[in-house]
């Protein structure tokens, strides 16, 4: 049972990370900075609960806001550039963040024990949940409540004008701007929202695993983050959710016996999807197919 709860936790972080990339992809921006925001959220909220002995909720909140503020600031220079250049710039940002945490040493004694980030050794004492007697199912519940809230918000986004504006920018920036949309500021707001979600995910991750170090926040994780919405398709937020369950749940966890070969399968999957389903697995035809199937079943039941 512990094992399955563990998988549910992992899925939760990855869904949120995928969502943070999804928002930006709606505006047509491919960003690998999400892992940097994830790291900021993880370290910031970890430091707050460990070194300053905060309660988990304000710590998660501040972690998410810190990541969002960083995203906002990164957004200004980064979103003036496009395409491949943006990809490279955001990789650079994530690496800068990773190396800062690689060198961050900030330890002092709390209750007779020296705790805090310890440079290359990582940040080992994020034991808020254990110290406060949280059961593992309560942690899973917390994570998936956050996922549910984020899913509902992103679904709602598609019902209102803000969502249509994001998609319009992704579809044709010039036409969007000539229609009176301030494209740059919309992109920066999208970046900040993505940063908040990634930071929240990072905070949850740090507290669930009790231990983070710079090795977690590599470009591979950033690639995962953008691959979920790309594989799942941008038609709907549920595509990202499905892609995480498929990639993390089946490909990475289910095929654990394959060891490192799974990364090759992941690569192959991306290539296959790009070639055969360029708009992602949950594209228009898929949605149409499902709704027709459901309608058919309803008729049969009647």
């Amino acid at each position: 049972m512990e094992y399955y709860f563990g998988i549910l936790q992992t899925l939760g972080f990855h869904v949120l990370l995928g969502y943070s990339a999804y928002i930006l992809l709606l505006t047509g921006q491919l960003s690998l900075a999400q892992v940097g925001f994830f790291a900021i959220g993880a370290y910031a909220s970890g430091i707050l609960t460990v070194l300053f002995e905060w309660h988990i909720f304000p710590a998660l909140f501040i972690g998410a806001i810190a990541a969002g503020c960083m995203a906002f600031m990164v957004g200004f220079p980064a979103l003036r550039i496009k395409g491949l250049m943006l990809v490279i710039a955001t990789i650079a940002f994530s690496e800068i963040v990773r190396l800062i945490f690689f060198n961050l040493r900030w330890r002092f004694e709390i209750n007779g024990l020296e705790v805090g980030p310890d440079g290359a050794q990582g940040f080992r004492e994020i034991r808020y949940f254990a110290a406060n007697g949280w059961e593992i199912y309560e942690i899973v519940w917390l994570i998936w409540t956050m996922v549910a809230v984020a899913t509902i918000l992103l679904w709602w986004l598609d019902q209102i004008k803000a969502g249509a504006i994001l998609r319009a920018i992704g579809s044709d920036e010039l036409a969007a701007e000539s229609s009176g949309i301030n494209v740059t500021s919309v992109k920066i707001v999208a970046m900040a929202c993505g940063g908040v979600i990634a930071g929240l995910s990072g905070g949850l991750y740090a507290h669930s695993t009790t231990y983070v170090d710079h090795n977690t926040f590599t470009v591979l994780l950033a690639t995962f983050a953008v691959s979920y919405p790309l594989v799942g398709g941008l038609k709907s937020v549920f595509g990202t959710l499905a892609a995480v369950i498929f990639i993390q749940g089946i490909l990475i966890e289910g095929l654990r016996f394959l060891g490192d070969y799974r990364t090759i399968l992941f690569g192959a999957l991306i290539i296959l999807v790009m070639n055969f389903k360029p708009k992602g697995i949950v594209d228009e035809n898929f949605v149409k197919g499902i709704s027709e199937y459901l309608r058919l079943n309803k008729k049969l039941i009647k």
Partner: protein
Amino acid sequence: MTVLSIKNVSKRFGGVLAVDDLDLTVDKGEIVGLIGPNGSGKSTTINLICGVFPMDKGSIKLFDNDLKGLARYERSHLGIARTYQNIRLFGGLTVWQNVWIATRQNGIGSFAKKLGALFLRSQKSVEAVDELLDLFALQNKANIAAENLSFGEQRRLELARALASEPKLLLLDEPAAGMNSEEVQELRDRIFKVRDLGISVLLVEHVMELVMNVTDRINVLNFGKKIAEGKPNAIQGNALVQEAYFGS
């Protein structure tokens, strides 16, 4: 009253002087044609008015507002709307959403009003969109993705979207390209309707059937320079214009 006034505007692309010391005005309620052979600077002029790229010198004014240095979305808020030579719609969005996005509440007025427009469907904007879709005979396609429309419908949708921002000046970049005679007639009627709404129109067009029948006044460009200006029938008889089009 002058809606658009362009004075001494020039634009150079590398070695090519695309627009050379151009003067042009559009008055209120007027439909002005801008014609000329391929590469004479017509589309460049429209792009300069919209701010797609900056001009090298001269000034462009909408009413009393100098457009110099304004971003494209600011020009849209001031009242400039346009269509494109190659149709540029938001393909994945529905027909209804395409028009809705451009409705004027978006980005106008107080901050709270702007914010509200992002989250709420105001009755006013819904009515405005429905009205425009009616005007362009797209009401029954409202929930179809724009990319699945036929060519003629896409052109109509682009016009509807342009009008959604309640412009003072509408720039049409070859709206009749690829249309048959019957469709050109329809387009002409629609342009008149637009004018009746109090919107001035600057029309770039190669299809003479449209230009000669719809415009009040025509400007002719050749190699970026204005070579003639006048009523349609005067332009038809102008020797310089004939030379530009057919050679001497």
